């Protein structure tokens, strides 16, 4: 009897250990087996097999091309068949760029084809700090579940940030936050950047930025794009600001000037918040279906040439 109790206890421990053995990250492979642990070296064979061994909010990655069958989902999960996409699972900050001197390549960092995810929804995916001018290019990458996607806080004036084909979702504070020091303005280019579900700002530009945002979509955030100072000069081209709960384009203080070229601003609480500031349009922007299309100064329409 005692033996049986011991066995039952052991079994219960084993079962509960198994129940808590779910990983934040699992893998499937065409050569895998659902009896495996779905670890990198011991992948599973199907999405359904990996799903039960993946923690809520975790990621199933695909190692190689192959059919992985259907799946029934009832917890937060990411299935990433982006193949050889490299991933960074972070709880603090993912990639920290911190130049304190200037190297012979002008402090240029290129990050391409990466997938960032924070199981604790904290930290920056990529954060730029340091004391020297820094040039960062991020391309073809996705950011999910963190405090913020990209934080650009270089300590050196004359830095630059370029984002191309970037997908950002479910950030607690910022999709992209830019706050350079005084001196030569930071140069910003956002090209095909999609940001949604941010419980704060899709893009926030704090100070001293000259930049162009084109072919991008900031939807279903609290604020789509917010500009915090008159030292920010932004041009927004063919971009969509939609379904943001509070404001599509927000001028946080008076005296800011922003150019809009071919943009669509639909379905926000306020389309453009522009008290004491200037928005110049080229007679090609569509603004509608917001609870309030424009507050403050009206959009100044000038003709295309």
């Amino acid at each position, binding site marked *: 009897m005692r033996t049986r109790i011991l066995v039952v206890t052991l079994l219960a421990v084993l079962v509960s250990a198994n129940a808590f053995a779910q990983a934040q990250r699992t893998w499937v492979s065409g050569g895998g087996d659902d009896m495996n642990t779905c670890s990198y070296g011991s992948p599973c064979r199907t999405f359904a097999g990996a799903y039960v061994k993946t923690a809520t909010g975790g990621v199933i990655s695909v190692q190689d091309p192959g059919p992985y*069958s259907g799946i029934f989902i009832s917890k937060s999960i990411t299935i990433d068949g*982006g193949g050889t996409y490299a991933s960074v699972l972070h709880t603090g900050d993912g990639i920290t760029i911190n130049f304190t001197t200037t190297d012979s390549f002008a402090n240029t960092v290129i990050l391409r084809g990466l997938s960032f995810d924070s199981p604790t929804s904290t930290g920056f995916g990529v954060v730029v700090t340091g004391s020297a001018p820094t040039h960062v290019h991020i391309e073809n990458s996705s950011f999910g579940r963190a405090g913020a996607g990209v934080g650009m806080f270089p300590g050196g004036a004359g830095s630059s940030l370029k984002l191309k084909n970037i997908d950002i979702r479910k950030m607690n504070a910022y999709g992209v936050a830019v706050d350079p020091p005084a001196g030569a303005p930071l140069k910003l280019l956002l090209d095909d950047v999609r940001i949604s579900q941010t419980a704060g700002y899709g893009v926030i530009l704090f100070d001293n930025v000259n930049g162009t945002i084109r072919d991008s979509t900031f939807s279903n955030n609290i604020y789509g794009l917010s500009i915090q100072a008159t030292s920010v000069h932004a041009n927004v081209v063919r971009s969509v600001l939609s379904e943001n709960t509070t404001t599509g384009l927000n001028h946080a203080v008076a005296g800011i000037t922003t150019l809009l070229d071919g943009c669509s601003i639909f379905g926000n609480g306020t389309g453009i918040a522009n008290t004491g500031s200037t928005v110049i349009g080229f007679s090609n922007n*569509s603004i509608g279906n917001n609870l309030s299309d424009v507050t403050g100064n009206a959009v100044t329409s000038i003709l295309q040439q």
Partner: protein
Amino acid sequence: MRVLKVLVCLFVVVVAVNASAALPVRTWVSGVGDDAWPCSLTAPCKSFAGAYAKTEPGGQISVLDPGGYGALTITHSITIDGGGNFGSVLYTGDGITVNFTANDGLGNNVVLRGLSITSNYGGGYGVVVLGTVPTNVHVVDTTFVRTAVAVGMFPGASGSTLRLDNIEGSQISGTGVLVSPPAGGAAAKLTMNNVRISQTGTGAFNAGVRIVANTNGTIADSKFSNGSQGVLIESSSVHLSLVRTVLSENSNNGLLHYAMGITTLLDGCSIFGNTVGVSNVGGTVYGYSNNAIGFNTPDVVGNPIQSLTPK
């Protein structure tokens, strides 16, 4: 003793040569690598940090296969390059079913990326969202072939969201994207970018996109062609904006308002070659004087488009 001295000298020289040898400009990481290795193609490292230390400043770290490569602090110029290929779902029944019946504490978020979803038998949903609590689904870089419906959004709770980015659907026997949230409560939010759906079914309720009720959404840079209806809206509780989107070669309507009192915005759209371009009986379509509507017979049925002045 002399021999020993010679050996020691040789050793020092060898160490010095190693220390001054240039690091490789190109290194590799792999999930089965080891940071003790040289990070070459055949002996890759295991972490970005391990490879970073063995890569010449200004060089490149390439990724051989999917894996967690850890956090990294960068203080010299570097390129980190990953690539991509597809995982596929070949299904009978429905492909991926999302069915939350309780909140999971993480916001009920499902992300599906880089998949190729194909029905074995030409039926079922590629992705279907059901459940009883608010659910947020994001599908990106994914193709659908031979399904009855590519994406069906039927969350049982209001306030759900659906975002589709870079989606290709073809040979769909029914509807490309079907959105039908609960009629009451917070509207579902729909964001679609660069979604191309063609070859949908021929029935009157088959469409590239069919939205049944209670949805606020924006569809941009998309194309719904060669089906029955391009975009079908069935309730005045749907507020949809279409931006730079093409509705063409549909056998019934490019845009169909299938109820009275619906308002839709068109911004820079092209509506060509459908039987009816815009069917707007009892509804309102606002255009921003930048939509091209032609080659339909007729171009507009019902109320004419109200042209607004862009700013």
